[in-house]
């Protein structure tokens, strides 16, 4: 072989990827040809440099931070550039409002004797994570009270292809969310789902005044933007995991001690600051630092010249006290009001209902009559709705909601403050 051929093969020769016949040819040639040997030695040396680069471990907080990101995936965090990209924030902040409004209305419709408190936490927790995972992946939950425009804006925002990184990331997220919609490993047929890009990662649920008994054909929001497809796939995917469900059903008969108490914590904090807009920026920095979420700011004018501003914030429980501490450095904290709502009962009630619905679903799935099929669809809709509610609750229970009122010392007079 000529030198040029030899030299072209050196890389493969290094990796043992040449034919045995060529291998011996090259070996012999290298022993006698200084030019080629020089090339060979250069190759070996440069590869050695690369192989000398060590493996690198990620920082200590890597997994913890990753976990936080995974847990908050159904919310969108404040973007670095667009602090006030309000469509996503509305969706995020609204999750909590859904949780609160749902729980309030729900307890009105379930008679206490209709359900037993769910005592077996481990299994219910397991089934909840099963339930909770899909909504987490599919998107956040939007209150039906939400304005139409915000949903459209969410759709637009996620479809936005601006030149900025946020747009790209958003697109990636949508695609990722969209891809997970097209899950087919459940064996159920995936019904037509709107193309991933168009579908915002939201699921709208029907308004809470729908009692569990009656079917309600108009489920506002399910028809919107392909959510129907999303919901359907979710139901299918849950059936792919029979084990936790099985355990859950059995466990309902056992009476085990220890109930996991779930509470939604809410605070109203008044912060007196010298400069409201600066304080707002600082607060948002803080919120991002602690992996929290903010709603849109709503400046309100009170009186002639004094202004106050309210920010809705959601902070993961574990960071609440640190966040509070940091807030104190921004200004004077006045009279925090706290409210803690125990949602354990609602939560457990939903869990029990979910179990019943799933049993019903199983029954109906074995039938073939037309009316049963319709009923099956209705039941599946209910299942999805319930899972969404459960998810909203469990998410809400792990976070603290703060209504932060920023005011200057002229506007901080107690009687002038408008607090919701």
């Amino acid at each position, binding site marked *: 072989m000529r030198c040029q051929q030899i030299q*072209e093969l*050196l*890389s*493969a020769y290094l*990796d043992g*990827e040449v034919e045995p016949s060529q291998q011996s040819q090259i070996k012999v040639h290298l022993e006698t040809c200084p030019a080629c040997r020089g090339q060979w030695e*250069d*190759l070996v*040396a*440069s*590869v*050695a*440099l*690369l*192989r*000398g*680069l*060590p*493996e*690198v*471990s*990620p*920082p200590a907080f*890597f*997994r913890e*931070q*990753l*976990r936080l*990101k*995974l*847990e908050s*995936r159904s919310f969108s965090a404040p973007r670095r550039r667009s602090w006030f990209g309000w469509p996503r924030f509305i969706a995020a902040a609204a999750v909590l409002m859904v949780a609160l409004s749902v729980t309030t209305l729900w307890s009105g419709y379930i008679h206490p004797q209709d359900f037993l408190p769910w005592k077996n936490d481990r299994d219910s927790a*397991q089934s909840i*994570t*099963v339930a*909770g*995972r899909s909504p987490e*992946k599919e998107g956040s939950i939007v209150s039906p009270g939400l304005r139409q425009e915000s949903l459209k804006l969410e759709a637009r925002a996620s479809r936005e292809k601006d*030149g*900025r*990184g946020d747009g*790209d*990331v958003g697109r*990636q997220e949508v695609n*990722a*969310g969209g*891809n*997970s919609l097209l*899950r087919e*490993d459940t064996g159920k047929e995936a019904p037509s789902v709107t193309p991933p890009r168009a579908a915002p990662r939201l699921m709208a649920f029907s308004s809470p005044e729908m009692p569990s008994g009656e079917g309600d054909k108009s489920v506002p929001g399910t028809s919107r933007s392909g959510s129907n497809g999303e919901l359907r796939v979710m139901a299918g*995917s849950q059936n792919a*995991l029979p084990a*936790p469900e099985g355990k859950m059903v059995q466990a309902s008969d056992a009476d085990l001690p220890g109930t996991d108490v779930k509470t939604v914590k809410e605070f109203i904090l008044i912060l007196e600051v010298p400069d409201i807009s600066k304080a707002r920026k600082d607060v948002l920095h803080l919120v991002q630092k602690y992996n929290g979420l903010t709603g849109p700011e709503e400046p309100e004018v009170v009186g002639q010249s004094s202004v106050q501003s309210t920010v809705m914030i959601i902070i993961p429980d574990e960071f609440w006290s640190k966040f509070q501490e940091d807030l104190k450095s921004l200004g004077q904290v006045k009279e925090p009001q706290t409210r803690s709502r125990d949602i354990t009962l609602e939560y457990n009630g939903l869990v029990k209902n979910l179990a019943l619905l799933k049993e019903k679903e199983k029954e109906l799935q074995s039938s073939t009559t037309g009316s049963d099929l319709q009923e099956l669809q209705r039941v599946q809709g209910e299942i999805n709705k319930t899972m969404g509610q459960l998810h909203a609750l469990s998410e809400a229970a792990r976070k603290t909601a703060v209504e932060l009122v920023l005011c200057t010392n002229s506007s901080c007079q107690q009687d002038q403050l408008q607090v919701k």
Partner: protein
Amino acid sequence: MYPDDRELIDRSVAGDLEAFSELVRRYEKKVFTVAFRFTGNYSDACDLAQEVFIRVYQALPRFRGEASFTTWLYRITANLCRDELRRQKRHKKTSLDEMVANPAGTPHPVDEDLSPDDVLERREFQEMVQVCLNELPEEYRLVLVMREIQGLSYEEIAAALDISSGTVKSRLSRARQAFRQKISGRQELFAFRPRLVK
């Protein structure tokens, strides 16, 4: 590959974040190394690697084990590396200095055989190598990182980068060539031989 990966995967699919954390623990170094060697930047690598695992979590239900988990993981990593580069090109001109920046306190592999001076020298040396790597086009960089740093076979690289084995062979040859040219411009790297103890 760990024998009970499959169990962790199944539990992760069921929503068990603890199980997923353990899965991440087993593979984070591999992913992070590729991310770091590709971006040349510690904090970008961190974001990228986390994004990889988020994607992994989302796509896990679809992983059925036809390919090896590691290969699948590398594939996602490579794709995100490419995306990352595309995104960077759009926004900023990354200066080489910026790219190699190692923030204070960045952990480096500790080698007890070397004196502090030697360690420093070695670190600078490695940074120079990294800079050369970063000057290469992305597909060359990817194939070099996969082969030389992660030690993947041609078949594994082909699967991870979604190219044929033949393409791996020719691309690797050209990539090594290109890398050689980069470092030939920096003679000091050649002069500094050997504490390439591994």
